[in-house]
């Protein structure tokens, strides 16, 4: 003890200066933290406070306890409805998209295909297309009476299908849109992963007599598992934060999106409607917090059961 005290006293003029000097880097990184505090941290806390109040955005706030949360579960049970929708959509598109992306990536990584750059670009293109334009195009394609898809089907004698006016079909349409748009992005992630697999492994397998299919299942899949996990993790968050797609795809004419019969209502769309359409910012904040809890639990679950086996 005595020695230490002595030591500090001895070195104190230098140390003090050094310690003061250590504060300068904090100054340099402070802009981020100041902006983060103002635009992220404060709103996060404030919306927690708001979720227990009734507020129209302009007038006074009234404390209402848990009634905003209760509102989301009573009546039509909008929050559960939106979570169910997203869960269904998740299972409709994530397996197909992830597997599709993996297969495409393996094909494009192999030597069997020429013009790889061209194919990569084309598959990736939907991702860089403006989502608004994409969604409107899908809406026109899927129109019951004048859409191209029904026109095409009519050549085979298939009657008009009300794609967007049936709850089940509308969800499938939404899933297809998401798959079409995100397939390329996931494929690029897999391509990056595949390039890290040493070619010697495939060569060794080939010498041992493995078919390409066997090496796909026994070399490729186990080695890109972390990427598969990463893709599923991103898709989970992406699915539950869907907004633009359902907001536009099913807001046909003057109807409010999320239809038919709330079949494509996502939690974020619900939040938007509550906040900015009906000016119920308290309820909107409650949606945000419920969604946070669910996503947090989903993330934990995935890390534990999917990521842990690495």
């Amino acid at each position: 003890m005595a020695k230490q005290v002595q030591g500090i006293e001895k070195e104190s003029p230098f140390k003090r200066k050094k310690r003061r000097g250590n504060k300068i880097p904090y100054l340099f990184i402070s802009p981020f933290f100041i902006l983060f505090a103002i635009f992220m941290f404060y709103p996060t806390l404030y919306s927690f406070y708001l979720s227990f109040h009734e507020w129209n955005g302009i007038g006074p706030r009234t404390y209402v306890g848990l009634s905003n949360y209760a509102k989301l579960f009573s009546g039509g049970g909008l929050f559960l409805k939106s979570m169910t929708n997203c869960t269904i959509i998740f299972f409709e598109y994530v397996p197909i998209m992830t597997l599709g992306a993996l297969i495409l990536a393996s094909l494009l990584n192999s030597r069997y295909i020429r013009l790889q750059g061209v194919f990569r670009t084309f598959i990736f293109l939907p991702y860089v297309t403006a989502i608004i334009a994409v969604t409107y195009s899908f809406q026109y394609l899927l129109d019951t009476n004048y859409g191209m898809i029904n026109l095409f089907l009519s050549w085979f004698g298939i009657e008009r299908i009300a794609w967007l006016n049936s709850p089940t079909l509308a969800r499938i349409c939404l899933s297809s849109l998401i798959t079409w748009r995100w397939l390329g992005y996931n494929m690029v992630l897999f391509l990056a992963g595949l390039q890290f697999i040493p070619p010697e492994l495939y060569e060794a397998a080939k010498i041992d007599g493995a078919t390409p299919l066997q090496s796909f299942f026994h070399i490729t899949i186990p080695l890109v598992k972390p990427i598969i996990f990463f893709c599923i993790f991103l898709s989970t968050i992406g699915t539950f934060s869907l907004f633009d797609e359902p907001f536009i795809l099913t807001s046909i004419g003057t109807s409010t999106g999320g239809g038919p019969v709330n079949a494509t209502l996502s939690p974020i769309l619900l939040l938007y409607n509550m906040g900015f359409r009906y000016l119920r910012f308290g309820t909107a904040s409650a949606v945000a917090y419920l969604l946070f809890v669910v996503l947090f639990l989903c993330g934990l679950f995935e890390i534990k059961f999917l990521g842990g086996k690495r």
Partner: protein
Amino acid sequence: MGRKIRMLIVTLVVASLFIMVSMGSVFAQQTTLTVWWWQHWPNCMGPAIDDFLEQNPDITLEQTVMGTGDVYDSLFLALAAGAGTPDIVALESSYIGKFVEVGGLADITDKISPWIDKMDPSKWADMTNRKGKICGMPVDSGPVAIWYRRDVFEQAGLPSDPESVAELLDTWDDYYEVAKIIKAKTNKYMLPLAKANYDFRIFEILLWQQEAGYVDREGKLNINNPEAVRILEYLGKFWKEDLALDAGGWSTGWYAGLTDGEVATLPEATWMGGCFANWICPETAGLWGVVPLPVWEEGGVRSSNDGGSNIAITAASENKEAAWKFIEFLFTNPDYMIDAWRREDWFPSLILTYDDPFVDEVAPITGQAHRRIFADAAQIIPWWVYTPDYAEMNSIMQIYVSAYALGDIESAEEALAQTATEITVRTGRE
């Protein structure tokens, strides 16, 4: 250090003095009125605005033309921020209630009092606040009648002149019978009426014809009443028997259906004529006809309302006098309002225009004096109100009516009972 601060203060003082002086010199001569509205308004009021600016050289006008929804979003954000609201803003009747409720619009009761009995009386309810003060000026109304396609009626072997069609569509039961004839003879639909992704404004039109609606005159929830059930069951027949085109209002399929004559009729407000003639289907001029609404029982009222818009001064405006001058100049002058009516079938809320000889002129889109039918209908509209909760109540109604249309909910009574419960949970209306 001290010197630096002194320098800074001096610079700031000089700069602010300069800004104040320069701004002062501008404001000494000119009042700038900022206006937010949508394309329709400058289209209709162009000459009136020119006259106003000529007669008031001390006022300049700064118009911002945006989409209807953008006006509301921007206004809400400006109100929430407490800065940046315009002096004057246009609002549809369906949305004005919300802004009156949050206190964003100025009380103009005193200024408007000479005009109260000269305007369509049904308009006031949505712009009156809880204290009974009026916060807006009615501009256009939406009396409803039946728009029908003469060519489709002819193809079905039915008479197509307005007098005979009016007789043919005397009651809503007759309307349903005609729908079956048209379907059988031409394989066309009676009206566009989507099962989902649709705001079901036609359901509201039919409710208001019966003096029903979401709420009663005291503001109590009234959506779950026998009239409403009967109306929904009636619409249900069109869905079940495939008599309606499954296309939501203002969608691609809807426009195409109206243009190509896939649908025989459209029960809709007067302003539809302007939409047909100016942008949806100008090529159908002369193919349309107008007859009054059918009734549910003999002696019923052949009228209802859909939409309509208003103009208001914002509570934060610093130029309220000039703003009122502008509003009064434009929207209480029958000549300007008739000019707007001629241009875009913009039906004035100003009652004294209804006797003008212009109303009996034949319009190109219908080949008949259809404005007379709407002017007569406007004076007998039973009663309607959107209320501040309209957007939310309409969206809830959409869900359950749609579920009924798709067959997810069996009975109309059940669909409306669930609508009522959900509205109570969400808005607190009993």
